[in-house]
């Protein structure tokens, strides 16, 4: 939000619209730049159509809400008015995966990547920590592409050192090892990092790549991974259509035969609630599960 505020101060065409959410997060922006801030109330569909209309007049519009509200609730407005018209709107959703786990299935954002990824002209951005959020936000403020920015909740551990990264869509290698490579995105990356650490004690050395952009899964990048006998994808999302699915599609279309073990959230019980840590464990995507699945394959 600080990056957005800084950019908006020097660019009056940057507009922030909230669907009546963001208590404690958007206040400073609203106070300092009231002319660039709009609370459109609890009306996601009109909000998204309105954002597209504003963008058609040269504005760079950031639409902020939580969970599935700025994505699934207004899907057709995104499809027709933002993507098909190529309007300069950034959809920002806070609460990836089970960030709001205790609030119930309505608040579990676990199908959004699949749905957003199927839309034309929409760039999908999946930062893993606040450093990635910062560099991606800087990029988004200077770009005019329609984009979907999937955020966790604030306060997750920092993975990158401060000011150590740039954003050019390429994945970031944050752990180095030769036995397998985990590709992940979002704060779930921390589960991969714990798993890799534990696997080291068992003599299994894992690389970890953070994938901040689906578009960054290029042929060049994936060909670098062909030295690994095993790839693992880990995401806080349904197994259908998410990160793992995107990797598989690309491996196949580029003709790579590397094995991919897809680790994603089990969707068999929708009604269960609990903390993010509890649900990650229950849904088979915590470090414990990652560790066990890699160990079972490699040992």
């Amino acid at each position: 939000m600080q990056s957005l505020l800084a950019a908006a101060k020097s660019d009056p065409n940057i507009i922030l619209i909230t669907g009546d959410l963001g208590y404690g997060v958007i206040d400073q922006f609203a106070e300092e730049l009231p002319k660039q801030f709009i609370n459109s109330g609890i009306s996601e569909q009109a909000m998204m159509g309105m954002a597209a209309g504003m963008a058609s007049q040269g504005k760079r519009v950031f639409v902020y809400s939580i969970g599935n509200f700025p994505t699934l609730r207004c899907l057709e407005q995104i499809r027709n008015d933002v993507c098909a018209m190529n309007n300069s709107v950034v959809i920002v959703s806070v609460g990836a995966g089970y960030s709001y786990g205790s609030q119930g299935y309505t608040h579990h954002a676990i199908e959004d990547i699949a749905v957003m990824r199927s839309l034309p002209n929409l760039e999908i951005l999946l930062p893993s920590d606040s450093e990635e959020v910062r560099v991606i936000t800087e990029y988004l403020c200077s770009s005019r592409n329609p984009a979907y920015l999937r955020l966790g909740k604030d306060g997750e551990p920092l993975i990158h050192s401060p000011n150590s990264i740039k954003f050019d869509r390429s994945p970031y290698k944050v752990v180095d090892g030769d036995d397998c490579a985990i590709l992940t995105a979002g704060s779930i990356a921390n589960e991969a990092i714990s798993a890799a650490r534990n696997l080291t004690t068992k003599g299994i050395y894992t690389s970890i790549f953070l994938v901040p952009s689906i578009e960054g899964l290029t042929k060049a990048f994936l060909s670098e991974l062909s030295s690994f006998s095993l790839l693992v994808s880990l995401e806080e999302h349904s197994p259908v259509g998410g990160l793992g699915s995107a990797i598989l599609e690309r491996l196949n279309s580029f003709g790579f035969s590397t094995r991919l073990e897809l680790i994603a959230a089990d969707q068999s019980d929708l009604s269960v609630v609990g903390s993010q840590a509890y649900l990650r464990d229950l849904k088979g995507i915590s470090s414990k599960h990652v560790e066990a699945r890699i160990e079972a394959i490699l040992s």
Partner: protein
Amino acid sequence: MISDTDVARGVLLAQRARKSILEMTHRAQVSHVASALSVVDILAAIYARPSAPKNHTLNDLDREIVILSKGHSAAALYAVLSELDFFPRDWLAEYCNDSARLGGHVTSKDVPGVELSTGSLGHGLPYGLGVALSRKISNVMSPVVVVISDGECNEGTTWESALIANRFKLDNLIVVIDRNRIQSLDLTENTIPLEPLGEKWKSFGWQVSEIDGHSIAEIQLALETRNTCKVLIANTIKGKGVSFMENSVKWHYKPPTDQELELALLEVLGIED
């Protein structure tokens, strides 16, 4: 101020467009002829005004913006725009063909003069609201005119937009409702009753005017005054201008046969005499 010339220009534009609409829907054998005939006077009246967008103002940031939200009446918009030389008239002859520029619902891609592709109802008003709000912020004065169907008053986004526009007291947004009282399967009042429609808009903070949606002069006059949150309920007849198409649910779907086209053209051209 509107002049007699603007009115006369609108009347002529509507008559020519009616002929095109009949020929287009007949040749392509596609639906929605009656919807197009219902809205065509509204579009002709809008575009015949001196302040309306022209083919040479399409890149002007302060051009008036017209959005046809009821995208199924695309034939009417295309017919009007081609009469005004936004694009060549022979594009109309390809309407709905394989790889035609002009599809059955309003498309903006590579079609000069069309601001927004529509076809799913309830999209035009939020979009137009965003255009108006953006212009307000940037002190661009020219208005946004959004033409919606009465059926679109079933859509939640219509009322969401009505609430939001009132919040921002937009005086650069004009909504025109093509009130032909027929929606897809039945009369609007037999489907989801809208009346008292004007009272509903009033209660949302809008200035409501009821006008004859087939009177070019009344439409142009109503567009002149600048009010906060202005909605024009334009009473229309679905299928207007062709007696056997008027006020009939059937002609929401049915394309004219050769013989029906002939009869319809006689009526439309008869009006011209």
